[in-house]
């Protein structure tokens, strides 16, 4: 088991190093970063000094190692647009994005799994067919369109929920400001979370349905029936557990893509998160922010992946056994 964890950690470090290399390369390919900091009439001597202070005359490999070392300490340089440390900018906005992503993921799991189980067990039921049809809409409509439709219905027409912003937030422990503790914060979260989670929810529903149908056809389910176990024990004791094992993997990976896809939802709802910051950075060629965002999102993916693998090993005794043997 330890060997497995170590091996996966090594792989993760390699992945992150490659991402850091790409991020680092962005600085070089999108022009001389000094040009972003100086104007046309800055004296040549001053330009040279800036170059030197930034270490831009050092060999590339040294610059890269420095970038990695800084990144490891959450140090991503100064934003061109805001003239502020990138880390501070991201840290300010991270809670908004992470809370949104977390609530979306929770929504997609808590609604997607029961719907998937239901549609698998009542394959020919009317409601199951309705769920199936709705899920098709969920996967085929683009996120921004869903967001706009929801805003039109619940914010403009019915006036139940706000159409933009985070509502009131409360500061907890230093830099983390949460919208989960105020009524307006919670209300503001509903529409963006549903918008962002809808695609994942339908995906999880379809995955659970397909997986459950597959499991229900297996010999051990047939044998469980032949042993006279109650329908409930067969469906929710045996079949569901086997269904959820592969779902863990997908759901974990989806959490990563929820965070990445938050960009669109944040834009539609003017959500003050990292996604909006990233978009602004792209518009203004603010490389430090773009690079830092890239590295952070990949780090997140890697961590989630690692957690999923460990969780998987915990749930499935067969995998645990092969790991012990390895």
């Amino acid at each position, binding site marked *: 088991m330890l060997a497995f964890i170590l091996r996966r950690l090594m792989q993760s470090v390699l992945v992150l190093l490659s991402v850091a290399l790409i991020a680092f390369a962005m600085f070089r390919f999108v022009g001389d970063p000094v040009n972003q900091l100086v104007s046309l009439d800055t004296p040549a001597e001053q330009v040279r000094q800036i170059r030197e202070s930034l270490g831009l005359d050092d060999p590339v490999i040294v610059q890269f190692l420095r970038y990695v070392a800084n990144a490891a300490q959450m140090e991503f340089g100064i934003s061109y647009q805001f003239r502020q440390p990138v880390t501070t900018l991201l840290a300010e906005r991270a809670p908004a994005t992470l809370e949104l992503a977390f609530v979306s993921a929770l929504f997609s799991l808590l609604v997607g799994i029961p719907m998937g189980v239901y549609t698998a067990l009542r394959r020919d039921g009317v409601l199951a067919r309705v769920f199936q049809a709705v899920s098709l809409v969920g996967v085929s409509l683009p996120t921004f369109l869903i967001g706009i439709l929801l805003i039109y219905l619940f914010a403009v027409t019915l006036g139940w929920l706000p159409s933009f912003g985070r509502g009131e937030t409360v500061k907890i422990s230093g830099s983390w400001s949460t919208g989960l503790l105020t009524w307006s914060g919670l209300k503001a979260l509903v529409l963006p979370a549903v918008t962002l989670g809808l695609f994942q929810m339908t995906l999880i529903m379809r995955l659970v349905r397909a997986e459950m149908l597959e499991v229900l056809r297996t*010999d*051990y389910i047939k*044998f469980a029936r032949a042993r*006279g*176990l109650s329908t409930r024990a067969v469906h929710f004791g045996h079949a569901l557990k*086997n269904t959820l094992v592969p779902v863990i993997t997908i759901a974990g990976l989806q959490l990563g893509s929820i965070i990445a896809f938050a960009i669109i939802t944040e834009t539609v709802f003017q959500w003050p998160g990292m996604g909006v910051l990233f978009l602004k950075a792209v518009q203004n060629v603010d490389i430090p922010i773009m690079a830092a965002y890239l590295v952070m999102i990949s780090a997140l993916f890697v961590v989630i992946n690692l957690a999923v693998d460990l969780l998987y090993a915990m749930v499935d005794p067969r995998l645990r*056994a092969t790991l012990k043997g390895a």
Partner: protein
Amino acid sequence: MNEPVLSVRDLTVEFVTRRGTLRAIDAISFDIAPGEVLGVVGESGAGKSLTGTAVIGLLEPPGRIAGGEIRLSGRRIDDLPPGEMRRLRGKRIGMVFQDPLTSLNPLFRVGDQLVETIMTHLPVTKEEARKRAIDLLAEVGIPAPERRIDGWPHEFSGGMRQRVVLALALCAEPDLVIADEPTTALDVSVQAQIIALLKRLCRERGTAVMLITHDMGVIAETADRVAVMYAGRIVEIGPVREVVKNPQHPYAKGLMGSIPSLEESRERLLQIEGSMPRLAAIPKGCAFHPRCPHAFARCHVEKPVLLESGAGRVACWLYDGDTVARAETAA
């Protein structure tokens, strides 16, 4: 009174498909007496598994019982509501499937699957159920059962897993066990052990067995009577010695021709010329007539019924008194 444990009359199973109704089991009838072992043989697709599945009430749509009746110790069970039928499964009728590697849920400990089944059928506490599970594991020959009970299925070999499956099928002392090719998926070296175990456990408990297999050697050693199936029908049924040594039906003759002797007989069935028809294309009259070396006019039009012949019964017009008489007058 020696009432049969299982009594099947004119059981018919059909699949309703878009292209019409397929009759997979065609009005079969047989009895199994208490403690008796009935062997069921026949080519792949003959309907052996389907018969077992219908008896235990686990047919899945589009399959359905389209006619006939099934009685367990005299009580009709084919029309029971699902809840009542479920309570019979595992308690009165046990079932063992072909592949022990896939019969156990890989995510549940062996002991949990046993305890769960025992507690479903018997009014015992969890501790009692666990004790009973350990005893059962010991009885089916699992070494160190008090330790192995907490093992996962993947930690058991194929033979050991089939022993666990037997323990599961027998844990509520059913009157009848349906064993559907219980050794086909196992190593040859352990097949005989598992069959011997099944035989011993059932004899000790007086459990009747419906033993589905391709292995004529197993039938010869284990069964009291044997039913030969072909294209969803029973073509011959009788005491095992008679049917194996002196088969009557032309198809059964072909089958038994493949056994050189009762001892060294682990071969697959000899292929009779041609193959069994698909369900959609079962010929009129005797389903075997395209392959039968003795077929005559009547075989093409009239479906043979099971007729008494010697110690057993045979579905072949060759053994119909009328035909014999007619054939003699013609000669």
